[in-house]
């Protein structure tokens, strides 16, 4: 139980620092430490992610790092995308999608490292 709290806090730090949802950490924490099934853990992780992202967005807004309009468009467009994703996962073999996405993330990581940030500090 303490391990779940620690992982939750760490996922929050990562979310604030990097602008990600932290599902990569929440889902295993819920299955391994709290004994939830994969499906229930993925669902329950949202319960942690939503308020965390909301507070993070509010903090970033205070720091002057949020384009609210753009964020709204991104979020609204993500909803039909997610519905399509759930439909696809039931048709295409999951392994193909996993490997394709892993490859895509490596390409993106390379692009991020190669280019200079717009504002060096």
């Amino acid at each position, binding site marked *: 139980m303490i391990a779940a709290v620690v992982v939750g806090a760490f996922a*929050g730090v990562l*979310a604030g620092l990097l602008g*990600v949802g932290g599902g990569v950490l929440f889902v295993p924490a819920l299955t391994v430490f709290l004994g939830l099934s994969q499906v229930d853990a993925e669902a329950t992780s949202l319960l942690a992610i939503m*308020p965390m992202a909301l507070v993070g967005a509010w903090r*970033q807004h205070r720091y002057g790092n*949020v384009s609210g309009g753009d964020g709204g468009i991104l979020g609204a467009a993500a909803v039909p995308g997610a519905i399509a994703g759930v439909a696809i996962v039931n048709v295409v073999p999951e392994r193909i999608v996993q490997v394709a996405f892993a490859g895509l993330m490596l390409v993106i990581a390379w692009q991020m490292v190669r280019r200079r940030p717009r504002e060096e500090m």
Partner: protein
Amino acid sequence: MARMAGRRILELGAIGCAAGLFSGLFGVGGGAIIVPMLVLRRGYADRRAMGTSLVAIAIMAGAAMLAQGAYGNLHVDDGLLVGVPAVGGVVAGTWLQQRIPVRTVRLLFAGVLVVAAIDLALK
């Protein structure tokens, strides 16, 4: 001007749609798409991309949460157990982000993508 606005909405719509697609597929992956695409395609500064990504994630997670709640898959007590410390963590994380060089933040982000890719490939 109208063309610029149209292009902006089209690009943001495509990025958001892709982010939703991957989170629908794997339950994760929203920020991993949104942040780099805002930086590489929309010319965002890193911190602004990461802050704006959290807005999109809150909306996306909220909508998905309502759907999962309807299926009865939510464990509220367990969600709070990881979610409450996460709120404290996100306040600390955003604070920290303002105080370390943007280059370091970017390298950390790329590192997390690589770890996530390896994790996904080995599943």
